[in-house]
């Protein structure tokens, strides 16, 4: 496929690797410890592991994996709310496929479906609106989760439902914003991350202005990076060059998709429907102003409010260390449950389920 295959070219990847090695060698004499680099997005983690790039990088570079797996950081309370709604006979729950097997405090949405709940999977939120239109006797609740990448699509669905006057369409939202999480990691007193690869598709929507004060204040270089092997290698090269030169700027590797100001149409629809709010991240906790909630004008679409689920209390599985994994403090194999009590078939934590989860990546590509 055009714009995918050419960025997977092995000889080109080897050239970039040699270049990275040449750049880091200059400083390895005076530095005893490797540069610690975090790729923020789980799709980037998967590319690193699938192609074995993490193992090909010189030992002067240590990769740690970030919180950019949307289903992993969706609060367990939101999943429990979705499961509670699936138990109501008049409700159809509509979700992105990734979400169905993520454990809530007692079960997942797929089990709720097996128990007779009406749980559907869609690719686009517009399909959820279509379901509401075609089934006026059902109350259709779309589980609107994700980062800046899905927020405009989810907002469009709400806006469309309002324009059409649909009174049987609702959204259960868990919308998260990436820059406050990057800031939290950079500002943490025990932070060891020295540079970030920022997520290319989040920045396609939101732009990268918001990373500029983070880079300045915490003296960390940030490179907006794509998802294919050559993208990641070029991103690492740009980041390591900055580290070696003592610079801490925001640079853009993924120029074929990302503009500094982002996608203005996408931002406009997000702003029309949502407003910034404090947000809980699963395994991590509350991060101020790191989420989006429906504006008051759209309150009648808010499933948590309409169905009275705001005060649902939820618990977490005790042994799972996903919070530490998602902040780059621990790697998946350091978890006592990894590959034993926790597998993709019987996951204890969300990162073992998702196509963007770090634990699932290690299980798929590194388990001997």
């Amino acid at each position, binding site marked *: 496929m055009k714009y995918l295959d050419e*960025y997977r070219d092995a000889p080109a990847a080897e050239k970039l690797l040699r270049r990275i090695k040449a750049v880091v060698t200059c400083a390895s004499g005076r530095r005893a410890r490797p540069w610690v680099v975090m790729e923020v997005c789980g799709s980037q983690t998967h590319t690193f592991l699938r192609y074995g790039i993490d193992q090909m990088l010189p030992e002067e570079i240590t990769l740690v994996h970030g919180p950019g797996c949307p289903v992993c950081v969706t609060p367990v309370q939101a999943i429990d709310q979705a499961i509670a709604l699936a138990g109501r006979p008049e409700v159809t729950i509509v979700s992105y496929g990734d979400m169905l097997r993520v454990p809530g405090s007692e079960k997942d949405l797929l089990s709720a479906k097996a128990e007779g709940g009406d749980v559907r999977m869609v*690719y686009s939120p517009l399909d959820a609106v279509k379901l509401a239109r075609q089934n006026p006797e059902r109350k259709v609740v779309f589980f609107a989760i994700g980062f800046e990448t899905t927020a*405009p699509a989810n907002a469009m669905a709400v806006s469309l439902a309002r324009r059409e006057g649909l009174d049987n369409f609702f959204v259960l939202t868990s919308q998260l914003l990436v820059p406050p999480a990057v800031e939290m990691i950079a500002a943490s007193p025990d932070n060891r991350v020295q540079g970030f690869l920022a997520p290319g598709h989040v920045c*396609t929507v939101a732009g990268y202005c918001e990373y500029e004060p983070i880079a300045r204040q915490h003296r960390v270089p940030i490179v907006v990076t794509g998802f294919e092997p050559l993208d990641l290698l070029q991103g690492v090269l740009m980041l390591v060059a900055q580290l070696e030169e003592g610079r801490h700027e925001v640079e853009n590797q993924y120029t074929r998709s990302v503009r500094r100001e982002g*996608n203005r149409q996408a931002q406009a629809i997000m702003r029309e429907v949502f407003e910034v709010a404090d947000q809980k991240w699963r395994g991590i906790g509350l991060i101020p102003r790191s989420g989006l909630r429906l504006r008051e004008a759209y309150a009648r679409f808010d499933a948590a409010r309409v169905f009275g689920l705001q005060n649902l209390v939820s618990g977490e599985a005790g042994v799972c260390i996903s919070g530490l994994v998602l902040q780059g403090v621990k790697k998946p194999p350091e978890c006592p449950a990894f590959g034993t009590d926790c597998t993709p078939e019987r996951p204890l934590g969300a990162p073992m389920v998702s196509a963007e989860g770090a634990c699932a990546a290690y299980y798929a590509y590194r388990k001997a």
Partner: protein
Amino acid sequence: MCLGIPGEVLSIEEETQGLRLGRARFGGVVREVSLDLVPDAQVGDYVVVHAGFAISVIDAEEAQAVFRLLEEMEEAAP
């Protein structure tokens, strides 16, 4: 979920209900995509599609950036 797939815009439909829909080809697969967020997209453009919505038009010139870098590296090498 942040998987964005590049696809070629094959057709753009008239606006219905305020939506700008089109069809795009991803390798051998053709799917309906929303073009609301990329008002400048034309037939023949490649767009990055995420959750059924095109979120950017791929800049063909910028898409060569990494290959230009590789060429420069080769020229600079002894």
